[in-house]
Every structure is written in C-alpha cells, then in structure tokens.
C-alpha cells in the first residue's frame, strides 16, 4: 500500500485564548491513511475539527499557530514535526475555506506567480503555468485585475489557481466549491479529478454537499467531535441516513428519498443515484398508454 498521507493517533489543542487559560483541544486521536491518487472527502458538522485536520497536513499546525500536537503526520514522506509549512507546501497544496485569507498581491497574475517564484522555474515555464492555472479556473481575462475587485466566487477560483500552479502531489481543499455556481463547481471538480487521474495527485477535500461527494469522491470519512466516526465508499456512507442526520449531516437527495419510502412503507430501497431510483420505482408503475 502506497499511503501518501499518514496520520497516526493525532491530538491537537489550540493554545489558550488568554494567558493562563485552558488549551482548546480539537483533534482527539485521529488515525487516517490516504493512498496515492485517492480522492478522499472529509465531511462533518461545524466544529468537528475538519479545518484543523487540514491545517496539520502541511504543518501550519503547529508551526505557525503554536498549540500542542501529539501523534504524527507524515505527508509525501515528510514528517510535519521536522518540516514547516514552507517546505511542506511544495508537496501539499492547501486551499483555505476563506479565499480572502490567502490573497494579498496587487494583480491576479502576481497572485499565481507568487508561489511559483520559490520553485526556480524558467520565465516561459512560469508563464505557461500561470496561463494554465487561470484557464482552468476560468479567470484568463482578469490577469491584470486586483484580487480585491473579484466577486466571491472569482476569489475562490483564484485561490485554487495559486495552488494548482504549484502542481503539488497532495491537494488539500477546504470546501473548495462552496459559493461557486454549478458550472464553476463542475469545472473545479473536474480539474481536480483530472489532476488525480493524469498526475496521480492525491486529493483531500472538505465538502458538505453530499451530491458532489457522491459524484466525485472515492472514499468518505466522517468526522465528529475531533474523531473519525465513519468511513467507507460514498455508497456505503450515504446509506447510513439516520447516523448522518444524527451528526447533523446531509445525505444525497436520492438516499433521502429511499429512506422516506423505507420509513413510510417498510420497503428496503437502497438506491443512491437517479438511475437506481428510477429503475427501483418504475417497476411498480406502468408505462402510460401501453
């Protein structure tokens, strides 16, 4: 097994808010392995520790925020205890939940160039990567625009472009498509899928939208209260309708429908996609006019 992300018995607590106060424990014993080339979705209610886990994967935690970290995180062979975010970020591209927190340059193209400047690329290669990354996220016409003038969705896509341009082995995406329109969501996720397929990029994506997870992810991990509480294929996980609702999480609308039938009529439907729902339900009806 080629596990590119290894998280072992990870505990993390943020430093106290006030001097002499209590530390704030968030991760309480997380074990996770992600295979090279896998597309893993991370779901969980607000406050479960999803973002905190993402921040440990490239060493931002504990290196930039302090706090106490126990257990270990090894990504692409590098232990985050020995490597800070500066080194880790070449291999682990992290897109934050709030894109504005990672945009600070004067123009859109400078924003993408910024990370690339540390890689020692030739000017033509750099230009090629900037053009490619902006094309991928549908912002090619806005190269000279200030990031501050972009709409919320455009800022999100720019933040993704800055990370894509680095071509990292592992992409850690914290709600990368929330706030994007359906076309933008599809484009971003298909690019992520393409990077996974053609370059064996590994993807760890925090996402609340069950439909997107069902459509794109190979595996889902559910996180709650600083622990991983359920994992499996999207099909396995989304059939656990009552457990997911108990954790405050959505399932796909089709699993919800199956659950409604099962609860009301004692059926045992387990369809998850529209195709499956259509075949299961059409059997009970007759084609009109026949």
């Amino acid at each position: 097994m080629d596990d590119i992300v290894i998280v072992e018995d990870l505990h993390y607590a943020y430093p106290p808010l006030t001097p002499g106060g209590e530390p704030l424990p968030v991760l309480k014993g997380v074990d996770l392995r992600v295979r090279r080339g896998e597309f893993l979705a991370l779901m969980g209610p607000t406050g479960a520790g999803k973002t905190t886990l993402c921040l440990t994967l490239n060493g931002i935690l504990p290196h930039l925020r302090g706090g106490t970290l126990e257990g270990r995180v090894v990504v692409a062979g590098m232990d985050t205890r020995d490597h800070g975010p500066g080194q880790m970020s070449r291999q682990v591209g992290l897109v934050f939940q709030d894109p504005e927190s990672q945009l600070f340059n004067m123009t859109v193209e400078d924003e993408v160039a910024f990370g690339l400047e540390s890689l020692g690329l030739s000017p033509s290669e750099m230009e090629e990567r900037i053009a490619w990354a902006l094309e991928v996220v549908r912002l090619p016409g806005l190269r000279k625009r200030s990031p501050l003038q972009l709409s919320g969705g455009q800022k999100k896509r720019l933040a993704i472009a800055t990370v894509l341009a680095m071509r990292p082995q592992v992409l850690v995406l914290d709600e990368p498509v929330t706030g994007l329109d359906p076309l933008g969501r599809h484009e971003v996720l298909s690019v992520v899928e393409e990077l996974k397929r053609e370059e064996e990029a590994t993807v760890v994506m925090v996402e609340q939208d069950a439909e997107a997870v069902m459509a794109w992810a190979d595996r889902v991990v559910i996180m709650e209260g600083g622990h991983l509480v359920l994992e499996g294929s999207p099909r396995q996980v989304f059939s656990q309708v009552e457990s997911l609702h108990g954790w405050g999480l959505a399932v796909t609308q089709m699993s919800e429908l199956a659950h409604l039938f099962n609860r009301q009529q004692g059926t045992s439907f387990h369809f998850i996609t529209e195709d499956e729902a259509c075949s299961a339900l059409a059997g009970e009806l007759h084609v009109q006019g026949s």
Partner: protein
Amino acid sequence: MSFEHSPAIEVEDLWYRYDDGPLALAGVNLSVEAGEFLAVVGQNGSGKTTLVKHFNGLLRPARGRVLVLGQDTADQSVGQLARKVGYLFQNPDHQIFAPTVWEEVAFGPRNLGFSEGEVADRTTEALALFELGDQAGTPPAILGYGLRRQVTLAAVWAMRPQILVLDEPTVGLDWRGTCTLMEEVTNLNSQGHTIILVTHDMKLVAEFARKVLVLDEGRILAHGPTRQLFQQEAILRQAFLALPPITALARRMQPYGLRGGSLTLEEFYQEYTALRQLGQGG
C-alpha cells in the same frame, strides 16, 4: 404582523458599473411584493450581489432608481435603510466587529433604539436559536468559519427586519445549521416578512422560494413562480442551472405518468404513491 407597503422593493431601469470593471447591472426592472419569498440565482458574476446591495444602500444606482417600501433609497442613509432591510453578507468577516459574540448580536437591536431589556431578550433568543449560548463571551474572530457564519445570522435575526436579504446564507453551514436557518426564515416569511435569498443551491430554491429571479450578465433572464421556471429547460441551460435531483427524477419518470414537476421529496412521494394505488386499483 402586517406591513402597509406593497411592493416591498421596486427597481426601475437600474444600471451599475464597478470602477474600471465591466457593466454589472444593465437595465434591471423588478418588483418584489411584500411578503414574497424570492430566490435570486445566476452564475458567479451575473450581478446577484450587486443587485441586492442596492436594496440597503451599500451601492447606489449609476442610473435608474430603487424604492424600498415605497421610498427612494437615494433619500436615505445606509443607517435608515438598515431599519427596513436586514442584510446578511456572503462573507461573515465583512460584518463582524464586536469584542464578544453577545455584543455582536446586541449591536443591531440596540442601534434600532430598543430598550436594554428588549435588546437582552432578543440577543438571548437569537443566541439560543443558533446554538451560540456557550459562546456569548467569546470573541467572534477566534471562532471557526461555520460558527462565525452563525454569529452573523443571529445578529441579523435579532433585528427582525421587514425585508431580509440573505446572500448565500448556507455556505459554510452544515446540514443541521441549514435546516435551522431555513426553518426560521420560513417562520419570518409566514409572519409577513419579505425574504430575498441569493443562492446557487437549487434544492433550497425548489423547497422554499415561491418566485425565482434568474440573472445573466447583469440582465434579467427570467422572473416568475418557481414551478414554472423549473419547466423552462432552455432558460435553465442558458443560466447553467441544474434541476434538483428529485425534480430531475420526476421528469425522467414522466413516461410512467408522473407530471414531472415535483419540487420536494414529499411532493414526489405523494404523487408516486397516489399513482401506484391508482394502478393497483385499476
């Protein structure tokens, strides 16, 4: 509760351009009835946020005018408009500024001139509703994104504005947070408050909005009842909007006698069950 003005919002030939930017709104005409539940949809950059920021005076028309409860916004300050139009920003950090969660939520009602007793009641109620009771003394800035989002919801909620503009309110919320929010928004709407919901989530649109406004490059592409819009596939395609899965399923099952217009799981379930009984009876 009843409000005397109707319509709640009127937009007449509204044009707007950001500095050095492209045209963001190009001749929008719109009337939103008091008590309406309107969804505003369209691609990123289609002008949704630009349009709704004219309702509370954050943006001022380059041409045309906007009337809120019958009064031209040109004659009103942002402060005056805030009494009528509650606005929930897309990014919670654009409206968080107080030292504690309690102060953040109390600011709005206090600013509206309510007594301290009323301010405290509304704040307590809003914090409880959005499960923020334990965070009352915490600085909002240190909370996670989902919780900061809930703080801004509580702050707008405590003001109970006649018109409530929600700009992508469910982004960053989990399913339970979304359910709580939409339940409360529906409550406000049933008491006569006008709701304007900017979103990309077509499941939310299908379930809650009675009317939909589709924007495309600063112009109105469609405006009408939700059910009617969901039948207009050419418009949906042009605006890159996908039907919610349940509506798509109902559409696919039209050959079996479904009408194809289900907007919610319950509608689908009832129509399907009735159809099946009919089949078994005959």
